[in-house]
């Protein structure tokens, strides 16, 4: 398998991304929200929770990949 040529976001894209995220975090402090469960009242919940979740998902997927993969079938992989 050829190693995928990675797309590396340039410094500029990184900065834009992080700045936008920061902006939204700040904005989140000011908009009126209706927390239902308590945990979603924690500031920036909508940012850190998905981050955490995605990280856990990736770790989980790697683990599963070790156990169940790779498959061999008529696709020739």
């Amino acid at each position: 398998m050829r190693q995928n040529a990675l797309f590396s976001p340039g410094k500029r894209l990184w900065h834009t991304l992080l700045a936008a995220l920061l902006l939204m975090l700040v904005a989140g402090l000011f908009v009126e929200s209706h927390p239902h469960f308590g945990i979603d009242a924690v500031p920036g919940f909508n940012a850190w929770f998905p981050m955490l979740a995605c990280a856990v998902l990736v770790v989980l997927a790697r683990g599963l990949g070790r156990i169940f993969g790779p498959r061999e079938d008529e696709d020739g992989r």
Partner: protein
Amino acid sequence: MDAELLHHPAIWLILGGIVMGFLRGAPRVLLSLSLPLVAAWLLWQIPEGIYGGVPFLDYLLDVLQVDRLGRLFALVFMLALFVGSVYAMGQRSRLEVPAAFVYGGAAVGAVLAGDWITLFLFWELMAIGSTLVIWAGGREAYPAAMRYLMVHLFGGVVFMAGITAHLVGGGSLSIEPLALEGVAHWLILAGVLINAGAFPFWSWIPDAYPRASWSGMVFLSAFTTKTAVYVLMRSFPGAEVLIPIGLLMAGYGLIYALIENTARRVLAYAIVNQVGFMIAGIGIGTEMALNGVAAHAFAHIVYKALLLMAIGAVIVQTGKRDCTDLGGLARQMPVTTGFAIFGALAMSAPLTAGFITKSLVLQAAADAHLTWVWLAMMVIAAGVFLAAGLKVVVFVFFGESRDLDAEEAPPSQRWGMRLLALTSLAVGCYPPLLYDLLPYPIDYQPYTGSHVVFQLQLLLATTVVFFLLRGHLVKMLGSLIDIDWFYRTLGPRWVKVMVYGVSIEIREVVLVLMRGIANLLGSLRRHYGTRGVLARTWPSGSMVMWVALLLMMYLALFYLS
């Protein structure tokens, strides 16, 4: 029989599809473009109500039932057929688009069905139509088409068993919410869930869909699973068991999509994921949730078709399907790249259809105070954006160029994508377009400050995580053993052992039995002098032996019992 049945859009779509099979060139394209529009117009002409009176078996069928929910799904299906036809104008296969019309027409018929039997009839027609669409994908698709057909016919027989049991048990013919009591209703649920791609029958989606042609999968992604979602909405709203089933599907879809290398398989897993999301929404069962599910079915069809169209264009240009073989196409196919990015964003970014629909379901979960469900749905929303959106777009269109020979997609394909993008944008910018069509009255304002800000937080945070973890994502690209391994690899081996092994054994057992009986009856045979005649040809002998055995069995049982 009601006269309105003549205006049944499904019948016209199916007949049109069959006629289309005999046309070529411009008339065929013209028919494929006009049929969905005509069907939509026909549907719009029919006032809400139930039309039927068609005798079949021992029942009078309500073949056509027009209400808000059914009409919404039917219109979405017609949209998918129309856009798909635009996109598939350059399709060389003579079978695919006609088959897609039979398939899509059957799906329209299913969501407009007023009774279980009509629903089942269209259900089976869908299975055949979709098999043909996969089959049109070429030689590599044949075995997958067969596996697909088997799964769906199996689902069909389970569904049919459920329906007959329901009717024989005195259940109503019309499709009403079922109580999930007794075997009949569980069978119906199981039959529908097989078509929805629930555990353990989910692997047919990633197995079969990606083997269809570049345009075939666009059609396939729209109908089967959404029809199943529709039936679940009608018959099992608020069935709590659907929540874990849906979340399991969503989790499975996510993990497998994260690992999968083949671009369209990633999207296939994402379909399982999103259908799971919808099924969990049905499990919540409030009006808000059902509205959300219906709306999200629409949004999902639109953005998934858009992504599949973009990947389809790439496949046509490069002939490559795997993320590891693709990359850097943004320079050669800028327009396609743009639509792909939009498709990824259309999953949930503000100003797109995904934004105004997904939040409905999340809101419903929040209103019902289902903490864990809500959290899981958040994970799904973020994860699918990462796995099916960012991953596919970035790996296929960005990064180092692979020196692939590729040009921009042809106009027909670009028009297909353009139409979908516009639809998503229009609905996203002006939600009442969709909200007014939803089954229940709705009082929800998607564009509040907090909604927009929190959604953007989620998207941006996911993007950041993606870029941080992209190294890991690349390393684990591959395929996992799925449920289908059991019936594709393990199953055939088993069958071989059973069939060949057992048949040899049977033969030996028969021989031994024969010998025993021959010895027993030896004197008798000599007496009647038939020994030579009967023993000469072994097969005749064995036949007679069976006769004798059976006769003895009958006599013994009669006298002993």
